[in-house]
C-alpha cells in the first residue's frame, strides 16, 4: 500500500482535512487502494451527498469512460441525457459495474440525520475501514456533541478504522475541542 495511505490506518479514528479541491478523487483513490488493491472491506457512508454521485465517479475511474457519458446512463431522465449522440461502451460499462458488485466496496447515503446513525447503524457495521463524508454533517445534524460522537466512534468494536473527511472551512466552524489525529492533504 502507498505510504501516504498506510498512515491513515495508524489510528482507530483519523480525520482528513482536504485543503484544496479534490476530495472526491481522494475518496475514490482510497476506495480503490483499500478495497480493490488490498481487499479491505471498505464502506463509504455519505452524509448529505447521494452515494450515486460517488458511484458514477467510481465507474468512470475504473472504466475510463468519461463521467458525463456515465451520467447519461445513470440518470437517463435528466435534460442533459436527452442528447442521444453519446453512446456508452456497453461491455466496458457493464463489466465495470460487475467488478464493483464483486469488490469489497460498499456505499450508502442518508439525508436523515439522527441519533440512529450513531446508536444503531454504526454498532452494527462490520467493516475493515469506514469512510464518513463528511464530519460537519455528522456532527451538526446530530444531537450528540462532538466529544460524544468521537467517543462512540472509538468504541465501535467491529470496525477497524474510521476515516472522516472535512475541509478547512468546516473544520474552523466546528471548532473541535479535542485533539484528533488530523491528516492535512493539499496546500494552504
Amino acid at each position, binding site marked *: 500500500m502507498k505510504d501516504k495511505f498506510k498512515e491513515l490506518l495508524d489510528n482507530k479514528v483519523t480525520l482528513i482535512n482536504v485543503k484544496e479541491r479534490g476530495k472526491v478523487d481522494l475518496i475514490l483513490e482510497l476506495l480503490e487502494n483499500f478495497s480493490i488493491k488490498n481487499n479491505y472491506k471498505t464502506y463509504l457512508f455519505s452524509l448529505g451527498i447521494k*452515494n450515486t454521485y460517488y458511484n458514477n465517479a467510481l465507474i468512470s475511474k475504473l472504466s475510463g469512460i468519461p463521467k458525463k457519458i456515465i451520467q447519461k446512463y445513470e440518470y*437517463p*431522465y435528466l435534460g442533459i441525457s436527452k442528447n*442521444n449522440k453519446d453512446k*456508452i461502451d456497453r461491455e466496458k460499462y*457493464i463489466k465495470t459495474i460487475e467488478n464493483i458488485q464483486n469488490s469489497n466496496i*460498499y456505499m450508502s447515503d442518508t439525508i436523515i440525520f439522527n441519533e440512529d446513525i450513531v446508536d444503531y447503524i454504526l454498532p452494527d457495521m462490520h467493516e475493515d475501514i469506514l469512510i464518513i463524508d463528511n464530519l460537519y454533517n455528522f456532527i451538526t445534524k446530530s444531537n450528540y456533541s462532538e466529544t460524544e460522537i468521537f467517543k462512540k466512534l472509538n468504541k465501535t468494536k467491529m470496525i477497524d478504522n474510521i476515516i472522516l473527511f472535512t475541509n478547512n472551512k468546516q473544520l474552523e466552524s466546528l471548532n473541535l475541542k479535542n485533539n484528533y489525529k488530523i491528516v492535512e492533504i493539499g496546500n494552504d
Partner: protein
Amino acid sequence: MDRDKIIKNILSENITIIASLPLGGRVSLTTELLYDYAIQKGKKTFFITLEKSTYNLALLISKISKLKADLIFKYLEPCLISSKDDIKIDRDKYIAAIEKIRRSNLYIEELDDASIWNWYLDRFLESIEEEKYDLVIINRLDMILEKSKCNINRMLSKLNEASRNYKTKFIFITGVNKQHDEFELKDIKNYYKLKKYLKNVILLQKITKSELEVINYWNLYEVGRFKLKEVN
C-alpha cells in the same frame, strides 16, 4: 375496474391527490403512470420527488426491458451489500431500455429538502409556460406540507391556473414510509385532511404483492374497490 380505467380515472381532473400509499405501492403506481404517459404515449412528463428515484428507475427499466427489477436495481446500485450476485444482466436489453428513457420526454427531479418547496414552486411555475408538460407528478405532498409551511390553497389555485392554460395534469402523491400500523393511522388522517381541498382525492391501501387495491374516497364505505395488476 381494469388498470387503464383506473389511470384514466386518476387523470380525469386537473389536479389529483393520491393518498395513503406505502412505499412499494407508491413506487409501483408512479412508475405505471410514468411508463404509460412518458414511454408509451410519448407525453412530456415531469416527476418531482422527495424520495430517491432509483426504485422508480429500476421498475421503469424493468417494464421496458422485461428484465427483473431486483436485478436491475443491483446494477444501478452496485455498491449495496445485496449487489453480489452470480446472475448477470442481459446488457443489450438493459442498455436499450436506458436509451429508450433517454429518447423519451420523461424528466425526473429529486428534491433533497422539502423545506425549499415554496421557492421551488415559484421557479417551477415560471418554467411551466415554456415547458408545457402534459403530466406533472409530485411525490410527497405530506412532506411538503409538513416541512415547507406551504399554503395549500395558494398552491392548488396556481396549479389549477397552469392546468387551464397549458392543459397540464397534476398528481400529488402523499403517504408515509413507516411500519404498517403507524402508516394506516397517519394516512387516514392525511386523507381526510386533504379531501376538503379537492374532489379528486384517491386513497390507495392494502398493497399486497399480487394486487394493488384502489379505493375512491367517495366510495370508501361503498364497494369502490379497484385492482391494478402487479407491476413488479
